[in-house]
């Protein structure tokens, strides 16, 4: 067992992990932060995307031990301090960017990472960026629309409610 300490959503946490323990398992099982999901075992679905030191990372593709000392952000820490939804979260609700909700935490975390680097992405840039996040419910229409809206773009012309 290895002892790890990291900051998760602004709080210092620590625990003992096996070498093979993935970051996503540490978050879900040890810290009980179950908002980060596991949808595949080949690092492709993106349901487990979190931020590690400000970068979007698939938490199934990183050992917990590798995150020792890191600053980790998960979906549980995305809302505003008063509990209201962040701009991106609110846009997902306003534009029906989620259905079953399972891929949603990863989508929101990816969207946040995208908008940090590219504050006004085009439709094509958003679609390309989301290559690593699979959604089976929405057909992506309203996810792309929500991210465009969250970046301040006018989405009224995009068809449908």
């Amino acid at each position, binding site marked *: 067992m290895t002892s790890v300490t990291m900051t998760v959503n602004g709080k210092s946490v620590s625990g003992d992990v096996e070498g093979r323990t993935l970051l996503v398992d540490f978050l879900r099982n040890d810290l009980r932060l179950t908002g980060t999901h596991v949808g595949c*075992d080949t690092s492709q679905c993106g349901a487990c995307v979190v931020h590690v030191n400000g970068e979007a990372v698939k938490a199934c593709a990183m050992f917990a031990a590798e995150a020792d000392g890191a600053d980790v952000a998960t979906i549980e820490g995305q809302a505003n301090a008063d509990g209201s939804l962040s701009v991106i979260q609110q846009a997902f609700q306003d534009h*029906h960017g989620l259905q079953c909700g399972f891929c949603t935490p990863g989508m929101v975390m990816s969207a946040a990472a995208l908008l940090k680097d590219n504050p006004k992405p085009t439709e094509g840039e958003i679609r390309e960026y989301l290559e690593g996040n699979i959604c*089976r419910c929405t057909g992506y229409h309203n996810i792309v629309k929500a991210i465009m809206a969250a970046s301040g773009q006018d989405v009224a012309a995009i068809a449908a409610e």
Partner: protein
Amino acid sequence: MPKDSGIGASTKRREDLRFLTGAGNYTDDINIHGQAHVHFLRADVAHATINGIDLADAEKMPGVLRIFTGADFEPVGGLPCGWQVTDKHGEPMQEPKHPIIAHGKIRHVGEIVAAVVAESLAQARDAAEVIGLNLTELPAVVDMKTAVADGTTKVHDDLTSNLCYDWGFVEENKDAVDEAIKNAAHVTTLELVNNRLVANPMEPRVAVGEYSRSDDMHTLHTTSQNPHVIRLLMGAFVLGIPEHKLRVVAPDVGGGFGTKIFHYAEEAFCTFAAKAVNRPVKWTSTRSEAFMSDAHGRDHVTKIELAMDADNNFTAIRTETYANMGAYLSTFAPSVPTWLHGTLMAGNYKTPLIYVNVKAVFTNTVPVDAYRGAGRPEATFQLERVIDMAARERGVDPIALRRQNFVTEFPYATPVAVEYDTGDYEATMAKLEEIADMGGFAARRAESEKNGKLRGLGVNCYIEACGIAPSNLVGQLGARAGLYDAATVRVNATGSISVMVGAHSHGQGHETSFPQVISEMIGIPEDQIDIVHGDTSKIPFGMGTYGSRSLAVCGSAMVRAAEKVINKAKKIAAHLLEASDADIELKDGQFSVAGTDKSVAWGDVTLAAYVPHNYPLEDIEPGLEETAFYDPANFTYPAGAYACEVEVDPDTGKVTIERFSAADDFGNIINPMIVSGQVHGGIAQGIGQALLENCAYDENGQLLSASYMDYTMPRADDLPFYSVDHSCQTPCTHNPLGVKGCGEAGAIGSPPSVVNAVIDALQSGGKNVAHIDMPLTPSRVWNAMNNA
């Protein structure tokens, strides 16, 4: 002016708040104190005799509590099949035993061979690695036509062959259909494959079994679309647990698409093992396990013939389909290629004579069952492809050919047993032409050609039958269950309402849309109404959510229960207002006496029901809670018209979707935002089937596509924005809301237009390609172009 609440409002979804903040409660988020973990050792060969299983080393591994094999499940039942099809000779289908754990023989890759229960998942996995399997491999049966040839290895030794059933529909029409085809002016024939798919909800299946010795109570937490169905099947047929000692909970479920309807071995195992080891037992599927244990979808091989007279009127349709059942019969598998497929072969057209033959076949593959649309996409695909091909052969416009043959008068009795109550196929086609901007297609094609690309436009219509019913009819057709639903409307003393519904929401937004209906009926704010679902201990009963049935069937039960509540509340109001029941009106949450200014608020009446000091106790009971069961009189028949525009790169064969438009008629609509979202998702799955997705086996029964590395899921950059419209509304005539259902339409309606568009593109480039089987991958398209 759009409404801001009630029926017809695009109310934002309340469930989003928990999903967006990581506060959802999915089954894998449930951890019970003292729980153990199970890892299933699964077969890595398709067909083998099990000579022996050596557990000695594995049982000594750290943390192992117990290892189970097929022998441990000898005393309990196998997984039951919920639908018995009768073949064309009047004989019942062949129905093999479906063990929880393979016993004696392995029949598909992924079948459970042993189950290791250990303190931790890692320990269970480690122990499974040292289990010794002594197997004798047998030849695998993979190809369906080979499977039913004489002398082929049998998947089940105790059956007479690999043929589950040979079904003819309508058998009495066969000779007349044969005659009409023989005498037709023109017959278009198409042979095609409807590719095998994997549903792939993003949440893999999970089961957590629990047993309480204090009250002999079993609880199963599971990723199910229909917890009562699981309780019934597992309790009555597998484990012999009476329903009052078995609770099944399906909390937040991360998508279903049909594959979470069925009762699976892992659910029965965890429930059984929890008692056997006296610990809660948890299983979480990996994605790789999901590919080899979730029921697959589609997998039909079909020949369809469309006969026309000299004026291009459809005169007859004859089809022959081989439908893959896989190695065992999954819960509703036999119904999919028959009653959910044959009954839809009329489509939107007045073809007078139809005969459908389906041969269901056992193979050494994962069981196949309903996947979004279930039988209806297969019917729609062959019909809408053969019509397009016929138009090309006859040199007529494919839309005009469809229009000419549309059913225009309702109700319409098809020659395949069903009767369409309402529809307006011309209206949805006209709407499609508008939203797809078909007038601008020629200019867009010219632009594509300037860029060295081929552009094609494909159109199709679809009809589906949703909310399968009534129960007495489906019973005659072989269903071993009723297909009603139930709801309880519980009004609390202060006027807020909890509605316990048998439908299950796993992305459909029932928690938002169902209260819109109650709010409209009573006139209180939506946030005063909550939906409770997914727990057999909390809701009266329910058949769950599939087949686009939730609103049409369970919503109707909810309306009936609410009507009972309102009728009783009016009696209470009449007493409080000293008026006659018949004079009481309810509007905007106020009961008033017609023609007077006397009124009493909803909350005062509900309070009176629970604090009955001034109350007609001699006439009515206190309290305000009513339950209704609703069994529909007929299916509902959503319909529509879809258009796809593609570009094909002639150098690579790569197809890109440039535009996709959908004009649907869902009858009345409760929440347009949610309806659009349902259509979007269905379209993406349909485009996925048409271009990307394929569940592939090799000739030895090895599953070649068992991860997202091999099975292409549609990504955001494979898809465009869609244009969807549901303003054409012909309300259903036989349910109280006039609703038809919208969950599957997108997946049913989209594959043919994609393929039609690609064929149109290739033909425009001078390539004489009549058909390409899905998925239309670059290599398939390129080969078709270059062999044309």
